[in-house]
Every structure is written in structure tokens, then in C-alpha cells.
């Protein structure tokens, strides 16, 4: 079995945004989802570079969709997370969860017991 790929912070954000969007994940919607959830608007250059790099690593797959008039007749490039991508993001989130245990950073019911 191959070890899960280590992800950077922005790669995790992009993968989670794609997972949230499901079949509607393309450049504009991914950027809007990240902006809505994190409050920061990623630069298009950084977003496309990250998507291309993750596709090269096999973390996401892309395919061309339909062309629409408001895009000047240009097709959308849709993205979906691969099994390897999902494994990588789950692995990264597990590591975060382990580190968060016992810390009361989020307050109230989010505080977890210390058994890490």
C-alpha cells in the first residue's frame, strides 16, 4: 500500500472545496467556495498552479465541460477528487484532529478530552 501524499495547507483547502462542491467544481466555483468558507480570495494564478500540481500527483482529475455564452464560448474545466486525494486529505485532517485534542481553541463542546 502506498503511503498517503503529504499535503500543504492550500492544497487541503482546495481539495476540501472540491469535495464540498461535488459535480460543480470548476475554477470560479472553487474560488468562490474558498472565499465563502475561509474569507480569503485565492489568486487565480495560485489556484490554477495548485490544481495542475495536484492533478500531476494524481490527487484530482479534470475534464472539460460545456461552453457557455457568459464565458465567451469557452468550456469549463471540472475537477473531482481521486481516491488518492481523498486518502491524503483524510490523513491530513486526522493529524489536525489529533493535535487539536485537549485544546480548547474552539471553545465549548468542541473541546476534546486529552487522550492523544
Amino acid at each position, binding site marked *: 500500500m502506498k503511503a498517503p501524499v503529504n499535503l500543504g495547507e492550500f492544497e487541503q483547502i482546495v481539495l476540501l472545496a472540491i469535495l464540498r462542491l461535488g459535480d460543480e467544481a*470548476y475554477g470560479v466555483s472553487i474560488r468562490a467556495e474558498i472565499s465563502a468558507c475561509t474569507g480569503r480570495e485565492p489568486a487565480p494564478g495560485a489556484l490554477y498552479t495548485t490544481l495542475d500540481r495536484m492533478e*500531476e500527483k494524481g490527487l484530482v482529475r479534470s475534464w472539460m465541460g460545456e461552453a457557455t455564452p457568459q464565458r*465567451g464560448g*469557452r468550456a469549463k474545466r471540472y475537477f473531482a*477528487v*481521486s*481516491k488518492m486525494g481523498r*486518502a491524503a486529505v483524510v490523513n491530513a485532517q486526522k493529524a489536525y484532529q489529533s493535535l487539536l485534542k485537549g485544546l480548547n481553541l474552539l471553545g465549548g463542546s468542541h473541546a476534546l478530552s486529552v487522550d492523544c
Partner: protein
Amino acid sequence: MRSASIADWILRRVAGKERAASMVGDLVEISQQKGMVWFWFSVVGVVAARIWRSALGLILATCYGFSICFMLSGALFAKHYPTDLRRPVLEVIRIFCGYLCWATLYSAIRFGVRDRFVQSSFAVVAVCLGLIYGWWQPVVVVCCIAAFAGFVAILAVSRERRRAAFTLPLVVATGYLSMYLGGLPFTIYRYLFIPEFPRYFGPRDYIGHATLERLVWTALYVQLAIQTLAIAAVCEIMHWWSMSKPKNDQLLEDGEPVADVS
């Protein structure tokens, strides 16, 4: 729409036709709220994000690649001069190490230090440097041979690393052959336009030829740039090849358990 067509043409230089079209489509869609200034800033940003690593890698490899080879040559013959059969062997190791340093400098900037080729190259360069700087000490030679055996053993268990290691001799061969290719323009120029110097230049030839020194430096940098471009081209092609995977990773489906995570 004319702006979009121009942006499309620009982005096709740094990305494929379909990718460029989809990027421009995305930027057109967002620019309906953000405006044309944002659109053009974004186009410049996308181009910069895609080429800065290659550009920086090419510039630094051109400037420092030859210096590294030259430095290794000095290191090999500085204190202990090999006179027996070890000399040709060490010469080959020096050439191998020099071109690998050259390619590693470019690849480390272009693909990052986690790239398999960069890691393999670092390992071989470390072994070669050990031999170049301490070939006359038996302990160093034994350690280098053991380290190289370990490197070969690691190759046996990883397909990606094997592919990356296959790139190493290819890069060296390309670098060596492109040395002759890079020198060709100046050789042709010399025979056509400086007929009084059909042979190699010596220090005395500079006397009375003020522009000759400038010409030689220009020729040297043209040669280095051609060598760097050739090495970079091989690194790009082999990186693409080593990263290509068999098409057996299915797309995620709803509700599918992630069995291979834990």
C-alpha cells in the same frame, strides 16, 4: 472579447490549448463583477505563477552550472593528483557529478526538493563529491561505495525512484553532447568572420583585439545557455514521464469507504 482572445493567446504559451481556454473563461466570468483591470492583473499573475520557477531555474543554472563543474575540477586536482588508473575513473565521476549538479540546480528550483529526480540526483552527487574530495582515503571510498549500494537498493523497491534514476545518465549525456552543440555557433562565426583565428584562442591573441575578449565571453554564455536549455528540456520531459501513472485510480464515488487510509 478582444481582450479575452489576446489573453487566450498569451495563456496558450504557458498552458495547453484547452486549459488556457478554460482559464480565460473563468477569468471572463469573474471579471464581469471585478472589471478589466482585475482581469489583466489575473492574466499576468497566472503567467507569472506558471513560469517563474522555470525562468529562475534557467537563469541560475546558466550562471552557476559551469562554475560548479569548474570548481569540481579544481577540487579533484588541487592537493592529490591521481596518476594511475584512478585518474580516468575520477574524471568520469567529475563530469558526471558536474552535469548532475547543473541539472539538480535547475530541477530543485523548477520542481522542488521533494521531486524524485532531485532527491536521486542529490544522493548520487553526495557520493560523487565524497569521492572527488577524498578519493585517496580508503575509509571515504568504502563509505561512498556503501552509500551507493544503499541507493541502488532503494531503487529496487520504488518504481518512481527507478524512473528518476534512469534520468540521471540521460541528463549527463545530454549535458555533455550539448557542450559541442553550444560551441557550434561560435565556431561557425569564428571561421566565417575572424579568418585570422581558425584555431583556439590563447592569452596572447587578446593583445591587439579589444573586442575579442567580449566576443569570447558572449560565446561562452551562449554555450552555457544552450547547455542549460538542453539539460532543462531533458529534465522536463523525464519529469513528465516519471510522474505519469497507470490509469487505475478511479474517481471518488458517493458513499465509497476510504479503506486504504488507516
